[in-house]
């Protein structure tokens, strides 16, 4: 019998059975059951001929209405099932993102002295300097004589030297590279040379082997003012542009005038502390205008060219930068030290 109740009943049944459906297959079966060619809705149509024309019209419209409603319900369910399946597929790949990553190589470290050397060279290269190197086993001539430090010169006391024989030694500074480069090349020159140097000295701040960076510039009309400009630029680049820099007269046989350069203490910011011996200043490099003697040694025309040179100790800057209090730590190769930096 066709009745409003019967139609309602079918709708209710459909809604309740949709609730239980989880897969596409179940969904297709149920859809056939209600909306298929032999489904419940089709079955209702079979009863139509038995009705009056009026009733036929009325129930025809109702059945159609039911069909549309059910189709909508089924479509909604299908999208719901598909969405659930997609979510499930994603969840199959769920991981604990906090597990440590798989690392097939540990991470090593560049030595702190290398890192600082490269930082320094980087700044000078950005200013237009080029990198050169020289030998560590050096002739007395290049290490001393050509640098205006003849035999029996008191300045030889400033650098206690390791000798190989009468004429050969381990270079005590990177300055011989100045002579070697000037012998080979003509001005204009802007050169920096990093390298190992050696002095007979050993305690917590002195090592028999350490690293220096030498730099020099030769051209027409190079002045002390340029020396101040370039080194101030470097120190600001390395330590920060807020740091004060001061130049104070000093002595090196191979420069004239000579200067030591101090920077405001990086630890106490100039207030005075143990590191700067209460002075508020840290001595960071030595420099000066290249002594005319050096030009005469390499055959440059003194009246035409002038230049400046500077030298700095990499260990000292590194110790300041990383708060390292014993220079010997650099050469022990202890992984526990290296991995901290």
């Amino acid at each position, binding site marked *: 019998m066709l009745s409003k109740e019967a139609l309602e009943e079918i709708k209710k049944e459909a809604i309740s059975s949709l609730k239980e459906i989880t897969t596409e297959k179940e969904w297709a079966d149920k859809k056939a059951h209600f909306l298929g060619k032999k489904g419940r809705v089709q079955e209702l149509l079979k009863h139509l001929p038995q009705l009056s024309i009026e009733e036929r019209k009325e129930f025809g419209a109702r059945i159609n209405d039911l069909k549309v409603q059910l189709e909508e319900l089924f479509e909604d369910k299908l999208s719901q099932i598909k969405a659930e399946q997609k979510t499930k597929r994603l969840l199959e790949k769920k991981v604990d993102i906090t597990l440590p990553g798989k690392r*097939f190589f540990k991470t090593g*470290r560049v030595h702190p002295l*290398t890192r600082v050397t490269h930082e320094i060279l980087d700044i000078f290269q950005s200013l237009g300097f080029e990198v050169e190197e020289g030998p560590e086993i050096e002739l007395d001539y290049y290490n001393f004589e050509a640098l205006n430090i003849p035999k029996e010169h008191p300045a030889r006391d400033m650098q206690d030297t390791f000798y*190989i024989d009468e004429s050969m030694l381990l270079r005590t500074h990177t300055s011989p590279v100045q002579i070697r480069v000037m012998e080979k090349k003509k001005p204009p020159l802007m050169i920096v040379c990093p390298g190992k140097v050696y002095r007979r000295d050993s305690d917590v701040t002195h090592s028999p082997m350490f690293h220096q960076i030498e730099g020099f510039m030769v051209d027409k009309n190079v*002045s002390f003012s340029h020396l101040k400009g*370039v080194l101030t630029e470097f120190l600001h680049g390395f330590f920060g542009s807020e740091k004060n820099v001061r130049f*104070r007269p000093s002595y090196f046989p191979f420069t004239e005038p000579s200067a030591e350069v101090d920077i405001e203490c990086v630890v106490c910011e100039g207030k005075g502390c143990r590191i700067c011996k209460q002075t508020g200043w840290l001595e960071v490099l030595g420099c000066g*205008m290249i002594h005319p003697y050096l030009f005469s040694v390499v055959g440059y025309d003194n009246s035409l060219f002038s230049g400046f040179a500077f030298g700095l100790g990499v260990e000292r800057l590194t110790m300041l930068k990383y708060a390292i209090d014993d220079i010997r730590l650099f050469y022990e190769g202890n992984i*526990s030290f290296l991995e901290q930096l």
Partner: protein
Amino acid sequence: MLISLKWLKDFILIEESPSELAFKLTMAGFEVEEIIDLKQSFNDCVVGLVTEVSDHPKADKLKVCKVSIGENLLNIVCGAPNVAKGQKVVVALPGAKLVTGNIEKTVIRDVESYGMLCSEKDLGFTASSTGIIVLNDKVNVGEKIWEEAYRDLDDLVLNINVTPNRGDCLSHLGIAREVSAITRKPLQYESSVFNLVEKADFVDIEIYDPDLCPRYTAMLIRNAGIGDAPDYMKIRLFACGMRSISNIVDITNYVMLDTGQPLHAFDYEKIRDKKIIVRKAKPGETIITLDGKERELIPDDLVIADSERAIAIAGVMGGLNTEVTEKTKTILLESAYFYPPSIRKTAKRLSIPSEASYRFERGVDISGVPNAAFKASSLMHSVCGGRFENTIVDCYPKKHRRTNIKFFPERCSVYLGAKDIMKRAEERLLSLGFEITKKSFEWDIIVPSYRPDVTIEEDVYEEIARLGFYEEIPPTLPSVKIKGVRRNNNDFAEKLRAKFVNFGGFEVINYSFIRQKELEKSRLSDLYADRLVYIKNPLTDELTVMRPSSVPSLLSVVETNHKRNNFDFFIFEVGKKYFLKKDESKNKPEEIKLISLAFSGNLYEKSWYTTEEPYDFFNTKGIIESVIDDLTNVPIEVKPVSAENYPFLNPASSCEIFIDNKNAGFLGLLHPDVSENYEFRRDIYLAELDYDLIKSLYFNRRSYYYGFSKFPSVDRDITVIVNEDLPVARIFSVIFASGTELLKNVRLTDMFKGEKIGAGRKSLTFKLIFQSMDRTLNDEEVNRENQQIAENLIKELAVDFPK
């Protein structure tokens, strides 16, 4: 150089505070390293009154004293022979830190002692003493000794770092001159009046080598009473780090610290024939110096001699044979100028560095030579009652020529890059004692005799600039010619290190010198026996030889880490090795730049995703292959190592590395014997690579784009069974040689050994990849290729195929 502020004020009025003065000196080139408050170390030294002296119950030579220091009465045990009731004495209280030691409350043979009664030696004033100090009766009991008894201790001492060029400033006069130039206050000192004569009855001076001794002066002081120096002199010497010896010696030292001129006093009666000869030492000549040591002289040494023998080593130390003693009546005082390098050579050779030689080495003021002698004689008169005539015998065969420098103001202002500075140039040079004659574009400058360091125009620039503390020179950047260059060295060095760091490498830096025994320990001594570079004067007896290989250095780093329980790591170093290159004529030291690697223990440890993996030949080789490939795009080749050339490696697990057909180093397993020497409990792999070779390949990197095929590739697997010891490289090369241009790549995909294929055999599976640039390959042609390769493998290597 220690400079007493009180002493300095003898020469110049100082209105600045000590720290201001220190700052100004520092900024003018005389770095004041420290300002020492001299009295500070005497704050626990007070005046005491000995109220009672009794014998020590248990020691004959000791006395027990009751000493009043004002409110308190102290019990003090004293061993001095001269202690007596009623004396005012110096009491060092417990807590006092004297140069001779720290004072504590002690018990001396069951008697408590609350301090010490001091002698001058205890306080550091004299080198020796016979008893405790007995003070003037007027000083107040309980006062600190610097308040009244030793008022000169109430002084500040500047520790000034005088650079080697400024020998003139190794004296109070010298520093006063600088202060005068800086503060623009005049120097105050009395000019002396004396006669210089070439000859006198009392001495006959002869200089054999005027180059080594251009000036020698002598004075005679009669009836000098040898004894104690006055307190002010003792304290001033103490302030400058010296000790009082006797009034005569002290006066020579005092005048040296005052003027910078070292002096020497001879006992006149001991000089034979009134003769002073300045000459070079004779071969085999010896002299016993004041310190009692016999010195063998060589003809390079300059000596002062009388008619028969050397009586002093010139400028270095006097001889015992003419020493001034208590019995001395008449003194011959020497003041001279010696050639600096000669003095330095002798002082160095004999290792007798002295205050005198230190000054002679740096050059004393040749014009001031007689003035210093006169000043000393005057003191010998006032202090010791000696008599002298205002006559100085002056033997001056090589007259000083004043240095004349042409100075161009225009050039100076360009050189310094500061125009304004020139306004003050003249004033500054005059304040430093230079004389100036101005011409239109140039000045003639005459340098004062005490400034031998100023010889060229640039030296004058420095004098002008430094008195402005360099602050007047503005910092400016030069205009430079810009250049487009590859940042060659640095760029490669950084990249290379970054590669190894990515593979877990820790960079280390090792000393270039090693211990000889490390060579034996690492079995390297025979290999380099006659090619080692030795250091003549090593720091210790151990670090004597420049390393001929990085191996000993790396092994000692491995050892260090194993001792600290770090076993699993990879370290690398970019450094040099040093050895003698055998040349036809002579052995020349060579230095070769290296990349050295050492691998210890595990590449990675057990983790939640893997079991542990030790470093082995193949993963270390893989790291090297990968780095070289990336940097150079050139494959590495390997050859077996000979035990002879690599005694420190196990040849079964080691190779020599070739890149671009050049020997580029080695990789290998540490020899078990070496491992045993170091007591290593892990396998260690070592490698060395030629830095410069890899660098040059990096900068000449050869890569070309050769297109790629649009057509699919086809794979074929081929499995062969061969003898275990057949190198895989041989199979690869046969495969490549047999394939046509269609063979694109070959990979070894599997390898196994086992009973299934028989003992001493291994099975290898290769994946061959074929591809054509212009067509899709059909099975037939690929099979043909494959067949050809298989046939060649049989023909050339007699391989088997699995059944």
